[in-house]
């Protein structure tokens, strides 16, 4: 590097971070990699198997089915939460005392732990004694999440939308608040319609925060485990056996550590790849 002094002391300062990252990410990940290429028996006996588990997972119908369910689930979650979050953010007041009230109300669901949300909705949607489940049945619909896949999915989606739309709302609201008044005034003078203001000012200005919102919601929904686990444990049948439910079944239920480790790595790579695609698509115009 021209004009820069080499200072070995620098390494000393990054050492704590390197150690931290090693302990919380690299070492566990390497352990998983280690399992994924070996057959494990009792008494700590290990036999090297190469990429056998990877091939097995990639060719298994069970994995394809879970992955398919997972993709559909994340797709539905994004398709509901992002537009809904933006719409709520647009409807929120921009100034005055109601701003704080709205922000606190919006933040509340985010403070509730996953398993509590699962338990809440589990009871709320019970067809016989749950307020929501009973109400839907009284309306004449046959709703029972322990028996019908549709009911289970609807409950799961409602739960996630209730829990996490706020995150999109808060991010979108932050993006909207950052738009200077002059943009709205200029648009007014230019005779822009409300739709044009949204399309040409608000949406482009929210682009960065929405990128973050979409990435976070994608990754989180793709990793979802607690809610379906608490609701039906992946049922009825395999209807809500999403990837992480399936993974835990293989790893801890069947104790197939090799295939589970291989599946973990594939799972991780899929999230990485899809996140990268989202990011690349949403930021592609910015480099011009």
């Amino acid at each position, binding site marked *: 590097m021209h004009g820069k002094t080499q200072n070995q002391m620098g390494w000393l300062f990054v050492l704590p971070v390197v150690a931290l990252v090693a302990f919380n990410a690299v070492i566990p990940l390497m352990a998983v990699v280690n399992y994924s290429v070996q057959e494990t028996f009792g008494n700590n006996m290990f036999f090297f198997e190469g990429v056998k588990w990877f091939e097995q997972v990639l060719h298994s119908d069970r994995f394809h089915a879970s992955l398919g369910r997972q993709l559909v689930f994340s797709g539905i979650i994004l398709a509901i939460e992002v537009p809904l979050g933006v719409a709520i953010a647009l409807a929120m007041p921009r100034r005055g005392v109601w701003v704080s009230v709205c922000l606190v109300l919006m933040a509340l669901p985010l403070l509730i732990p996953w398993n509590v949300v699962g338990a809440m909705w589990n009871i709320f949607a019970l067809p016989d004694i749950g307020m929501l489940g009973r109400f839907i049945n009284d309306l004449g619909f046959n709703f029972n999440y322990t028996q019908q896949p549709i009911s289970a999915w609807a409950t799961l989606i409602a739960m996630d939308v209730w829990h996490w739309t706020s995150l999109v709302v808060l991010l979108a609201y932050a993006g909207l608040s950052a738009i200077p008044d002059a943009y709205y*005034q200029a648009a007014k003078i*230019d*005779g822009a319609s409300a739709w044009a203001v949204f399309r040409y000012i608000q949406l482009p200005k929210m682009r960065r925060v929405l990128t973050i919102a979409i990435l976070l919601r994608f990754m989180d929904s793709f990793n979802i485990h607690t809610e379906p686990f608490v609701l039906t444990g992946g049922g009825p049948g395999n209807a809500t056996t999403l990837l992480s439910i399936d993974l835990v079944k293989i790893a801890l239920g069947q104790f197939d550590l090799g295939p589970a480790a291989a599946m973990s790595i594939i799972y991780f790579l899929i999230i990485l790849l899809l996140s990268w695609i989202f990011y690349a698509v949403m930021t592609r115009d910015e480099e*011009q």
Partner: protein
Amino acid sequence: MAKINLENIRHSYLKRPQGPQDWALQQLDLEWTDGGAYALLGPSGCGKTTLLNIISGLVRPSEGRVLFDGIDLTERPADRRHIAQVFQFPVVYDTMTVWENLAFPLRNRGLAAAEIEQRVQAIAQMLDLTEMLQKRAAGLTADGKQKISLGRGLVRADVNVIMFDEPLTVIDPHLKWQLRSKLKELHQRTRRTMIYVTHDQTEALTFAEQVVVMHEGSVVQVGSPIDLFERPRHTFVGHFIGSPGMNILPCEVGDGGVLFAGQRIDVENRPTVPLNGRRTEIGVRPEFVLLDERGIPVQIIKVSDAGRYRIVEARCGENPIKLLLEEGVAVPAGNAGVRFDPAHTRLYADGQLLE
């Protein structure tokens, strides 16, 4: 195209204004003739942006009426007043090209495609944007973006007045000058009414035919740049315009005429009414303070070089007096004497010029 009248306009941002300090804009009447180039000049917080926004319709005045060609538009919002406004920070629609930006106000008003194309091309040519029409507006420099903001106003045929709210704030110094000349040129070509808000006297005096000087929510003088320099009607104008500003010196007015530092001063405007109890001052620009050994005794404090002339700071008792000396004139050190050019020395009472 229209003549704009402000009648008994007064504005406060508070719901229940109490004293005069609660009014962002004190009561005023103003007329803007069609096709004029105006500057609205004053320090930050003097109410110039408020006044501008009242004309454009972005702010509804607490009191008074806004008339365009005699028609009361006070209640009419900005998009229905046929005005255009350029803001301090450039506003462009990031996702559109330059062409789409310029066409946007016309498309919103439902013009035919052929007419839009023709107008956009004409305006782009005027603003030297033709080369960039197909570029994304987001990629332009600040001055290019500011040109687009202006172009969106010029492209419309129905615009009565184009307003500029400190449009050169974020422009590089060497481009400021270019853009300013461009504005002047555009005004001469289009003869649209333009109102230019600024706190920079150079910008105001070079752009405008008429300058409206504001101070603490009031209009203190409307006049040509020469008027403002030669006959400031308020001590604030004298002090604010000119570099360095006018000397404002407390004086006594009695039977013996105008007295400053015990000496009689000849002034251009003689008091015709008694000035009992009013605060009286004389105003004289540094350009019209002359060295004279037999004049008012002063002490020279500091001399600074300002290119073709030097600024001499002197003191007479408690009162600082500035004068300008051309290059080559000897500057006396220590004690000296000065006199004021009677044709350019005026008497002010409570800050107002006596007429």
